[in-house]
């Protein structure tokens, strides 16, 4: 598995296929970040694509390849907030009364968990989403993010604990 650093280096040489590898690696994470703000999967799709396009265009401004995940999520969050503001202006009554599932909206449980994820420190969030959204092993996460296995293990453990505490809080 190629590391983020390798894929970023290739992408900077205009290897768009390599950038596609980064998209595949992080798309679920970005999707979850965007959905957590918009609350609507359908609406998220365009924003997710736009996020990756923007990331590609601004890739030279990324100073450290190991920060790619958090950096990407900042772009995603900014794009999602912009879209959220835009949608609020045009939301119709018909949309408001549509069935949540049909409208691509999320269950309460999922919304709570997404909120918890949003409260995590960036690196912990990246680690736990790569682990469970992309099904990467601890070793693979360490490899792609350029961190040690020990660091990733700690990040995952802390993230799980924080999420547990958050969910307990919300269930009170």
């Amino acid at each position: 598995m190629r590391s983020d650093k390798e894929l970023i280096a290739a992408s900077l040489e205009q290897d768009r296929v390599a950038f596609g590898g980064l998209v595949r690696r992080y798309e679920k994470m970005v999707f979850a970040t965007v959905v957590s703000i918009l609350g609507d999967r359908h609406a998220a799709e365009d924003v997710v694509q736009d996020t990756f396009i923007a990331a590609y265009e601004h890739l030279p401004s990324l100073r450290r390849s190991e920060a790619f995940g958090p950096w990407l999520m900042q772009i995603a969050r900014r794009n999602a907030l912009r879209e959220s503001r835009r949608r609020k202006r045009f939301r119709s009554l018909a949309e408001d009364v549509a069935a949540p599932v049909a409208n691509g909206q999320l269950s309460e449980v999922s919304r709570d968990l997404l909120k918890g994820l949003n409260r995590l420190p960036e690196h912990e969030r990246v680690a736990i989403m790569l682990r469970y959204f992309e099904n990467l092993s601890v070793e693979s996460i360490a490899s792609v993010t350029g961190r040690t296995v020990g660091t990733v293990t700690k990040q995952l453990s802390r993230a799980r604990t924080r999420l547990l505490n958050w969910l307990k809080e919300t269930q009170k």
Partner: protein
Amino acid sequence: MTTHDDIAKRMQRLADEVCPHESIADAVVDRLSERGNTPNRTLPYGSRLATWPSLQWAPVALAATVVFLAVLLGPFRISSQDGGDWLTSTSTAYGQVLTDALEKAVVKGVTFRETTVIVMSDGKHHTSSTVGKQFIARDRYRRDQYEGERLHSRQWYVPNNGGMVQTGLAYDTKTYTVLRHEGSFGDTDPIARLKFFVNLVDKADKRLANRKIDGVDCIGFEISASKYGDNPEDWKDRIWFDAETKLPVRMERERPRKETQFEAFIRVQDDFNWQPELPEDAFLPKIPEGFEQVER
């Protein structure tokens, strides 16, 4: 909810619920390719194309395209349909046919359809309700997106003062956007997407069985996507050419997704018409009454 294991299970369920099962990577790469974006050119977020698949004919690029396609498509030759020697290093069969068509202005436009086919775990195929329709002219194009029979959105890309104006309609919100792109679309010559796909024939793993598609005798090839990127071996691309005209008839990209309830997703481009009868106003942006302009 008391253990880390529970968190793991919840996270996995969340991923299933929240995330699409089909990767958007191909769509993103397509958009980057069609726009000619580079990491070294910083653009405002609003100044990029909003659609992923396109063929777009820039006048200046026409000649280059002809040469390009001749080079690109040249090294292949389809033999007679007995399955014999189908790949040689000298033939320009495909490229020459398209080159001739362009030079004689026989091909003035192209239309085609885009759909996604979902392969269920029981092997059944379901075609997505979202259907894209592309209308391509020499220097402009239009993309219509349908949800079932309902027109969902429409985008025009029309040259203007050395640049390109993108006009988009969103029928759900009754809004429209107008964006200006400076210059042409860079390396997005008229056959940008075909370019990449057809180029893959050079690396084809196998020739597919002859097949009749929409009444047309076709010759097809298959290639593993691992040959052109960091992709799994079982990702397959296929392209079928009209055995007579040697123009593409159908293209597929199959992406197995075994971790989900689906076996695979296949993005399909078909229903190509290389000499469509397009109405004169096909590429004239028209804003329906009552639509409000928004910034994007």
